[in-house]
């Protein structure tokens, strides 16, 4: 247990630094999609809920788990969906592919 805690803290620290460095580079143009995407990724908490329901150690835990899966899955599906819809709308005035140029 002791070394697990330290391992986990190391992982947290490194991930936080990577997060800062990667997200600092995200253009303010895309801050709304950034928020909806990180929200969808954050819903990976669903894996904890899945194990909780699957192990079925008590009915109480399983009921809480089912609600948790529903809440997190709606974030996964909704989050990815709306992020992609938003990003699809961002177009440059300099056409990258002639095929997609309408005018």
């Amino acid at each position, binding site marked *: 247990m002791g070394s697990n805690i330290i391992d*986990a803290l190391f992982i947290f620290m490194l991930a936080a630094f990577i997060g800062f460095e990667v997200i600092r580079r995200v253009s303010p143009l895309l801050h709304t999609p950034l928020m909806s995407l*990180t929200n969808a990724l954050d819903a990976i908490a669903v894996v904890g809920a899945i194990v909780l329901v699957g192990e079925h150690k008590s009915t109480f835990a399983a009921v*809480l788990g089912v609600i948790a*899966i529903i809440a997190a899955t*709606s*974030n996964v599906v909704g989050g990815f969906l709306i992020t992609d819809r938003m990003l699809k709308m961002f177009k440059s*005035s300099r056409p990258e592919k002639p095929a997609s140029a309408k005018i």
Partner: protein
Amino acid sequence: MTDFAGNQLIIEVIYLVASALFILSLKWLSSPTTARRGVRAGEIGMILAIAGTLLHHGIVDYKWIIIALVLGSGIGIPLGMVHMTAVPQRTALSHAFGALCVTLVGSAEFYLRSPNVPRFMMAVLSMEVILGSLTFTGSLMAAGKLQEILPQRPLTYKGQNLVNLSLLVISIGIAVYLVLYPGTKQLFPAMIVIPLIFGVLMIVPIGGADMPTVISLLNSYAGLSAAAMGFVLDSKLLIIAGALDGSSGLILSVIMSKAMNRSFTNVLFGAFGQVQASAAGATEEKPVHSATPDEASGILAAANRVVIVPGYGMAVAQAQHKVRELYDALTKRGVDVRFAIHPVAGRMPGHMNVLLAEADIPYDRLMEMDDINGDFPQTDVALVIGANDVTNPAARTDAGSPIYGMPILDVDKARTVMVIKRGMSPGFAGVDNPLYYMDKTLMLFGDAKSFVNSIVHELSGAH
């Protein structure tokens, strides 16, 4: 046992791949050209992680997992299809759902393990449910305010900060007690209920214009609570995802609070919305110049460089598509049209960019504040649509002004300024805007959508 170990190894490898995909996903989001690839990477990572979890050896019951996944997807699809103007409240709602998931799993874990909860685990578990609970109700409140189910006006009362602070201190006190005596199951509900109340009270004093900061902060809390859940479950994947989300929310909160000239501690302790207290004292009638759509279109047509400054008023009036028609009409005449976006314009970070992109305005025409401020002196017309405080030159010059020091768009340096506005009412901060009384400023009184429409009409009809 060897079979379990084998399966466990596969699951861990899958989680490792998923973590890498999550990081790549955010990395690719840095530019609009690769951003959609980022979404794909995130989706693949998520599917892998969920599929891998189903291999978990302890799982005996798949029926309810499948039912819950299907129900969740059923709720998620409509939430992913909302109109772009509803994105801020949808985001707040999804923070609430994420926090709900984390709180429920944390509670279940506590009751399954109590009284045999190691101290470190109890500490992170407490952090998980406290942050989760307050984010849940806080985000629901924020979503309610954004959807205008709840009054957007900030509600303040005497001793507000003291009440909030004491609630927080009490919940931390309970957490400490539970760390020492993890068998006191009867105390646990209090550690959920008190932060739930705190979450509501935290958002009560917050007005609409502070929403970008609040949403970012709630995003950060949601991420941190998920990371805490990762510590409890000893899930590296969850720690990583939570840390990424937490740092993203934190960065956005810092950017937002800087753009409103609030210190970060000021934001953290929920002292939002305190600016509007000092309302304009001297409201003598000062002369303004106003103009008709006909005059405005004449000036715009004669300009070489135009900068449009959109604000929340444009979103409220749903004027973005008309603004695009204006952009098209002017561009056709050879006018260089760009958009100046203040970081806190709108109700969440990046809100204006999404609305303008939805209206098919190319993103390379959308300029950040620091990139365009130097260009205002060479700008013929600055057209302000539904923005107020972010253009107020008093923030630069008047040390007595409540918004003094806030970074603004230097609209007043343009050769001509036009402001589309319903009337002369002050903005969110309750501060009079000297911009409106300048000799070179023309006030265009009316609804943003219909006024822009009239200008477009004049531009296309006149020639």
